[in-house]
């Protein structure tokens, strides 16, 4: 199982490969894109992107020297037709730099890319929101080598999709991404924090009412309020327990470490660490955490021992037991 990690600089490639990452993904927004479109939306992130051709080329070289590969993300929720044409040019540029794979959110773009840059592998982004076997088969038929499943799936579903498409690699989330809505079904922008930030972190107040008119009983309102309090607690866990890390950078928050044995059994090819914009310390600690669990699985630890080890890593036993940090909370029931 490969660890897929985000990078935004050459230094990160070197450090993360030594820690055990085998694949990297990055954003690249050249000046030509900004001159033409005036925005940084080639890949949904205003920062955490390579901006220099030379630096990205060097990062790819370092990745290859360390037996790692580099993927370029082309994964905005939507593009205009003009932008799709520019993305093909960007992909050609990435191929010429020696890049290995493209992470693509627009299924219509896959055919174009297969035609123009056949030497590059195509990984379907989680933003494409393909989370069933039929979608996986379609991705494969379009020419994709890998499907990155969205965050919000169960291990059983991942297993089923993987079994239905044995000739397609499947990647799942393992650490750090906390979005509440499905990426491909969220039509919002991450506003600056003073304007509200991401919509799922914005300061909305819910005023409940009965659909179609009439008032809600006090007992229902009480339950809704209790549910809101619990939801806010869940949000806190989901957003990395208040964006906390340990002193060594180990992140709290969305995590699937205990599920690694089950994901391996489900023939999952790769696990993704999210957070292109995160500091190196957090990325490094994330890779080390996943690597240390995989090492123990390879050493023969059983699922229970793995869970114990994973919980004590940060340590986060109490938070782990709550289940709200888990991508795959069903493992706690086993």
């Amino acid at each position, binding site marked *: 199982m490969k660890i897929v990690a985000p990078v935004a600089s050459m230094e990160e490639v070197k450090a993360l490969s030594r820690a055990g990452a085998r694949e990297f993904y990055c954003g690249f927004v050249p000046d030509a894109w900004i001159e033409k479109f005036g925005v940084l939306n080639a890949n949904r992130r205003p920062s955490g992107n390579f901006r220099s051709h030379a630096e990205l080329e060097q990062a790819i070289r370092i990745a290859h020297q360390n037996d790692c590969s580099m993927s370029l993300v082309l994964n905005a*929720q939507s593009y205009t037709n003009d932008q799709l044409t520019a993305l093909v040019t960007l992909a050609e540029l990435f191929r010429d730099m020696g890049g290995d794979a493209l992470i693509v959110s627009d299924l219509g773009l896959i055919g174009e890319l297969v035609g123009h840059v056949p030497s590059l592998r195509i990984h379907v982004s989680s933003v494409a929101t393909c989370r*069933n076997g*039929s979608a996986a088969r379609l991705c494969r038929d379009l020419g994709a080598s890998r499907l990155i499943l969205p965050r919000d799936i169960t291990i059983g*579903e991942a297993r089923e999709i993987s079994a239905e498409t044995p000739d397609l690699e499947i990647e799942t989330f393992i650490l750090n991404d906390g979005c509440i809505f499905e990426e491909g079904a*969220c039509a919002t*922008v991450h506003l600056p924090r003073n304007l509200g930030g991401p919509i799922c972190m914005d*300061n909305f107040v819910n005023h409940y009412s009965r659909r179609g008119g009439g008032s809600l009983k006090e007992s229902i309102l009480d339950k809704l309020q209790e549910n809101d309090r619990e939801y806010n607690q869940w949000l806190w866990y989901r957003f990395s327990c208040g964006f906390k890390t340990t002193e060594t950078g180990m992140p709290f928050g969305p995590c699937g470490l205990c599920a690694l044995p089950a994901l391996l059994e489900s023939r999952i090819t790769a696990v993704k660490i999210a957070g292109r914009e995160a500091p190196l310390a957090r990325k490094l600690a994330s890779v080390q955490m996943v690597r240390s669990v995989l090492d123990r699985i390879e050493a023969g630890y059983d699922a229970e021992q793995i869970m114990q080890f994973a919980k004590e890593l940060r340590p986060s036993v109490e938070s782990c037991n709550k*289940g709200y940090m888990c991508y795959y909370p069903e493992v706690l029931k086993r």
Partner: protein
Amino acid sequence: MAASHSPPELAVSAVNPASLLRIGVDKPSRFAHWQATLGDPDFARWLAGFAPTHFYVGSEFCEHLLPGAKVLKKAVDHARDLNLPIALLTPIASPQVIRTLADLLPCLPEGCEVIANDWGVAHFVRERFPALRLVAGRILCRMQKDPRLGQSNLPAQCDFDPGPLRTMFSRLGVCRMEIDVPLSVNDNTFSTLPTHTSIHVPFSCVAKGRMCRIGSLAIQGSERFAVGRKCRKECLKVSARLERPATSDAFSAYQLGNTIVCRHSREMLGFVMTAVERGLISRLVVPGEAI
């Protein structure tokens, strides 16, 4: 309405097919229904000028709100009695949804539309039920619709560009697409769209989760707010108006189950009404159940 143009088709969507039967056949009763359902007298009056032409049953947003086979068969019978075509709304699909659709789709008469919001569903329909007509739902027809942006200085992604979808539509045999009214709507928006485009009014889908806050009301323990759990469908009875304290957002936003929707501004609806008068919109889609 301009006499020189045919009125648009009017599709009414609902999770519960019984809701569709409450719409009256004459203009006053339609007005009463739309006023009660949509809460906007001016828009209700305008909408009452059009008779429903299609019934949409199911859900674009939630895997738990697909009808059972029995309910769908009943809805098909009702629609037949009223001489209206029925269409099945489908959400982003888990593997279980695909299995459910394998049971549901044989209930639909040949030529019925399936509104797909998932490429896997579209692929499944094309492979297994080629006699059904595929419509690309508004979740597949993406654009930015953040209600907090207002309607000025919008980025390019707030325009809807159908160009990027053509390849997939052609591959899968998609015959119609559905969109929300773009935040950047203007006089030219609808004249540049392909003919077979349906427009949803008066709410846009802003963001949809698989996790559902209100659907977790009855769940306790570690799997509360997790996905793939059972649901008591609390969202059919309760919704929430969303307010951002100390802001004056131009749009009203609501949480409806796992989805945030926002109501179109009067200005946006004005562009839609004008486009309908000019014969530029072939179908409107309106929710048949109160928010």
